[in-house]
């Protein structure tokens, strides 16, 4: 019953939360750059505006990929907040992300195809660390279920400090923050234009933006999991990690994919796999 409530709560409040976080993010970013920044509600204005626009497409079949991207992102989030199997959540997230990548290919312009390839590289870069996190959570709490992990009396971070560092690292990719915003650059006037989303406009783009908002709560949820039943600490950690990501976003230039791939795999190997090995030796 509680799990269904949580699922419904996410369904309705998830994008609101995501939007507020994104709005705050834009505000803080602006302040870091010595600007005033847009209103906190700006992400909502943007989305509502996009719905007021005309729908243009390159191919008529292209928007279906976006619908399914959104559908599976929501599905992923609902699974997560219903306390389901963490591996299932990750697989569902991968499926969603693949629809997004295929949307990019379907766009058919050089910018969107390169964006799709880069998004794929990003997925390949963060996937190992995210899966290792699930393995680590299981080793720490003996359960893959999100519901069990967030009620476990022992904080997984005590056993998984390396894993925490690794997840924080790949979170930069998942939140599409510089230096790893390779596939859909946030700012105009770049070699990639808008990457995957280049050929999507109006309502379809709005759906992509909504999907991004839906992503935020459960991505932060990954951080939250590390603190088990100590929810207060979990919230504080989420806040700290997100602020750190904003700081990184504003202090690093975009890297090449080569660096991203190698660095994330090495980080996953050292902090993630290292942590697993140490745990299994102890355990």
């Amino acid at each position, binding site marked *: 019953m509680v799990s269904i409530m949580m699922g419904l709560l996410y369904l309705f409040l998830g994008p609101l939360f995501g939007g507020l976080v994104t709005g705050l993010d834009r505000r803080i970013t602006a302040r870091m750059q010595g600007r005033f920044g847009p209103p906190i509600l700006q992400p909502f204005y943007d989305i509502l505006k996009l719905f007021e626009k005309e729908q243009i497409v390159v191919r008529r079949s292209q928007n279906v990929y976006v619908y399914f991207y959104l559908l599976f992102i929501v599905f992923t989030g609902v699974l997560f907040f219903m306390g389901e199997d963490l591996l299932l959540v990750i697989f569902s997230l991968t499926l969603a992300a693949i629809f997004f990548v295929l949307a990019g290919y379907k766009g058919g312009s050089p910018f969107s195809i390169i964006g799709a390839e880069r998004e794929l590289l990003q997925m390949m870069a963060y996937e190992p660390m995210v899966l290792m996190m699930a393995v680590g959570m299981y080793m720490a709490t003996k359960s893959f279920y999100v519901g069990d992990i967030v009620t476990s009396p022992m904080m997984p971070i005590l056993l998984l400090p390396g894993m925490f560092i690794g997840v924080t690292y790949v979170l930069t990719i998942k939140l599409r923050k510089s230096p790893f915003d390779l596939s859909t650059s946030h700012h105009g006037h770049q070699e990639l234009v*808008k990457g995957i989303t280049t050929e999507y406009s109006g309502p379809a783009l709005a759906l992509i933006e909504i999907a991004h908002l839906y992503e935020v709560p459960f991505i932060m949820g990954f951080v939250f999991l590390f603190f088990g039943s100590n929810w207060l600490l979990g919230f504080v950690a989420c806040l700290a990690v997100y602020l750190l990501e904003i700081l990184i976003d504003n202090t690093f230039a975009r890297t090449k994919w080569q660096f991203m791939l190698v660095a994330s795999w090495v980080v996953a190997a050292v902090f993630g796999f290292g942590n697993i090995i140490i745990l299994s030796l102890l355990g």
Partner: protein
Amino acid sequence: MTYLAKSPWIIHYDATSCNGCDIEVLACLTPMYDVERFGVINTGNPKHADIFLITGSVNEQNIKVVENIYNQMPNPKVVVAIGICATSGGIFRECYNVLGGVDKVIPVDVYVPGCAARPEAIIDGVVKAIGVLEQKHTQMKKGAAVS
């Protein structure tokens, strides 16, 4: 009042500008003027943009480009000609390959004269453009209701 007014996204194209007006356009995005306060984002992609800021006069080389960018913007959309060259061709008006202002190729909604146009004037132009944008949106909705 529509949400178009709260989040006007722009695309900026330099037709044959001397870069004077371009620099002023970009200046609007800097901390000094910070148009992102009003939700303005420089998208760099016509398919995401609502307002087309164009600097410099149009010549034979870029007619097609200006048309392409304009066609690839979703309705409702507004064109703002920035600087005297974009408005009328300016001092280049008599050149052998220059057609004149942007309105020779695509319909222009707001003219921002100046050489170079000052950031305040540009922001003012964008605000005017937002008004036109809303009008066009109302028309579009009516059109949709009729058809």
